[in-house]
């Protein structure tokens, strides 16, 4: 029952996640081969373990983000198909069967993405290694691109895509057959779904997480292990925010929407972003996660670097030696986390594009009533901008807060005794995030803008 076009966004996300995971493992393998050839097996064992652990963390993050994105994409597609689902229900198809079909498609797409991603990721790693060896920046060694370990990210991607399609399609169960008859709108549909359990879970996790964050900071004043408590608090409280996204994002979107002025195209766009809390939180939460991760890490590292520079103030040679190491570490790790943000961005582009297609009739109506093509384009652009600005702002604020907790709990007890560490904000990274968000807004709106402007006013009059 699903058109191929609806599956492509999910395939792209699964492929990206698998490609990332496989490329990271391949590069780890190649680096291990290089180190073995230079320093012998003994040392390469620990290095391999370290690299493997680091790769594991980033792959987990990427797979998690892609699962959230896929779940939201599937939910967006399902919301737009309420009527079709209701019609099928009306003529006797069971909700469970329809949902199972969506999940099965998720598994197939996940498998396809895993295989495609493995090919792309291996090719990328091979390319990087060959270029490095050709330029002499790494010594030429023999390495193998076949490793059973590669199955881990592939299987993870396939399974999480399956799971995400399953959770994303839970709304199928809320569709009433009668909705095939009435003028069912998404708002109607969204309000049907129960949010009780989710709200309770969000509150419990939120309170628990916030408590642990505070505890982490307090313990961090005495021992750096406080960061582990803080980390747990961060994971719990952030999960709460993800669960409560439909409550958290609309107020942010409302404030951001005001920035775009009072002209009709801008006002309608802002309304669109605010009036469907489910829809807009689905579109933004992936990006919020991505930006929060990047910023958290960057703020923690920057604060750490700042402390280190102050502590080594009297040792300029040490500073000169440490500087590039820290810079390099920050750059590599930011890129690795940044990839998750890219997956999230792909998710936003997809959901915006789907949601514009789902509003063809509304766009036709506006054209009939006197919106010109330019106004339609402005409307889509402003909606994309409102979504990305809101997501980026939220992510930056959360990231700075989490980053500070991280830095404070690691560093509060070192140096001149217990003290408060002021967060240091890495402006270059903030600038990159903001610049990327601006690019994303444009990228996310190009295709939908063109498609929206092409909508003929006649479609609003047509009866389906």
């Amino acid at each position: 029952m699903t058109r191929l076009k609806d599956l492509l966004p999910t395939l792209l996300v699964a492929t990206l996640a698998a490609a990332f995971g496989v490329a990271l493992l391949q590069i780890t393998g190649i680096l291990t081969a290089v180190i073995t050839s230079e320093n012998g097996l003994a040392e390469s064992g620990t290095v391999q373990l370290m690299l493997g652990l680091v790769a594991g963390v980033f792959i987990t993050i990427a797979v998690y983000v892609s699962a959230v994105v896929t779940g939201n994409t599937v939910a967006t597609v399902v919301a737009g198909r309420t009527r079709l689902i209701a019609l099928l229900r009306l003529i006797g198809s069971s909700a469970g069967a329809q949902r199972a079909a969506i999940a099965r498609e998720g598994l197939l797409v996940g498998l396809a993405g895993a295989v495609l991603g493995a090919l792309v990721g291996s090719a990328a790693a091979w390319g990087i290694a060959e270029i490095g060896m050709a330029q002499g920046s790494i010594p030429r060694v023999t390495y193998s691109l076949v490793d059973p370990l590669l199955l881990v990210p592939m299987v993870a991607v396939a399974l999480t895509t399956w799971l995400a399609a399953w959770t994303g399609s839970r709304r199928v169960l809320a569709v009433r057959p009668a909705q095939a008859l009435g003028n069912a709108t998404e708002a109607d549909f969204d309000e049907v779904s129960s949010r009780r359990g989710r709200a309770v879970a969000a509150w419990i996790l939120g309170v628990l997480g916030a408590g642990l964050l505070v505890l982490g900071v307090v313990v961090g004043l005495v021992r750096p292990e406080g960061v582990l408590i803080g980390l747990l608090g961060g994971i719990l409280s952030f999960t709460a925010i993800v669960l409560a996204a439909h409550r958290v994002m609309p107020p942010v979107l409302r404030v951001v929407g005001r920035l775009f002025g009072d002209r009709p195209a801008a006002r309608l766009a802002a309304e669109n972003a605010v009036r469907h809390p489910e829809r807009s939180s689905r579109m933004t939460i992936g990006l919020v996660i991505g930006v929060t991760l990047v910023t958290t890490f960057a703020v923690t590292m920057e604060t750490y670097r700042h402390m280190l520079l102050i502590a080594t103030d009297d040792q300029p040679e040490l500073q000169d030696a440490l500087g590039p190491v820290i810079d390099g570490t920050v750059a590599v790790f930011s890129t690795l986390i940044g990839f998750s943000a890219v997956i999230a961005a792909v998710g936003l582009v997809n959901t915006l594009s789907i949601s514009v297609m789902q509003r063809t009739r509304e766009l036709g109506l506006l054209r009939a009533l006197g919106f010109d093509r330019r106004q339609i384009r402005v409307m889509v652009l402003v909606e994309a901008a409102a979504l990305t600005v809101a997501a980026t702002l939220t992510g930056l604020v959360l990231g700075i807060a989490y980053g500070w907790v991280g830095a404070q709990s690691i560093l509060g007890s070192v140096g001149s005794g217990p003290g408060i560490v002021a967060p240091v904000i890495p402006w270059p990274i903030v600038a990159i995030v903001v610049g990327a968000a601006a690019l994303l807004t444009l990228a996310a709106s190009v295709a939908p803008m063109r498609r929206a402007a092409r909508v003929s006013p006649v479609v609003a009059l047509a009866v389906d």
Partner: protein
Amino acid sequence: MQIHPSDLGLIARVTNLGKRYGTGPGAVAALDDVSLGLRRGEFTAIMGPSGSGKSTLMHIMAGLDSPTSGRVWLGDTDITDLPDGELTVLRRRRIGFVFQSFNLVPTLDVRANVLLPFELDGRRPSKDEQAWIDELLDTLGLAPRVKHRPHELSGGQQQRVAIARALATRPDLVFADEPTGNLDSRTGREVLSLLASASSRTGQSIAMVTHDPVAASHADRILFLADGRIVRDTARSTPEEISSYMLAMEAAA
């Protein structure tokens, strides 16, 4: 000397209008050499079997679609070859629409939907226009509903909001394409009598497609289309006269 449509008391006019969909042997002639003038202040009903070209005629007269041949005027403006931007402004200021369904922007409440044509024009209604809008909302029974969103309204209420919006700017011409096609017959007739009384009270020109003989009997003039041609053009008629003509048409087909 050039004769303007308005000299003849016409609010809209088409001459030798043709519309073909597709090319070659599979082409469909939705309209075939239609010439017609709609008179200012009149309520015109357009009837005919499904597929006879009623919607196509309306789309072209309203500047939503372009003809394959012939010319189209709205008032004294020849809109046949107007570029999209100018057509858009013309629809915004001089034409009102009521469609069969999906008339309202789901994210806007009733008042915002009614005010949308002004918004699109980048202005606020004048005092006089505001009074007219309040009166419309009142007579259409929407006053207690202005803060509601479309999905909180019944089908009949949604159509009344669409009527309020179409009349709010006092356009030259209101087009309504089967505006009650999605309503039960009683609600539909209520909505239509509101539309008809607005026309007679304020001299609003309206062109409406309908299948309902009772609805059409409110009209000052009734046009029948068949196979893309106008086959009958009569003044106000009783529902019985209209039904018997419709039956005769069906028998002939």
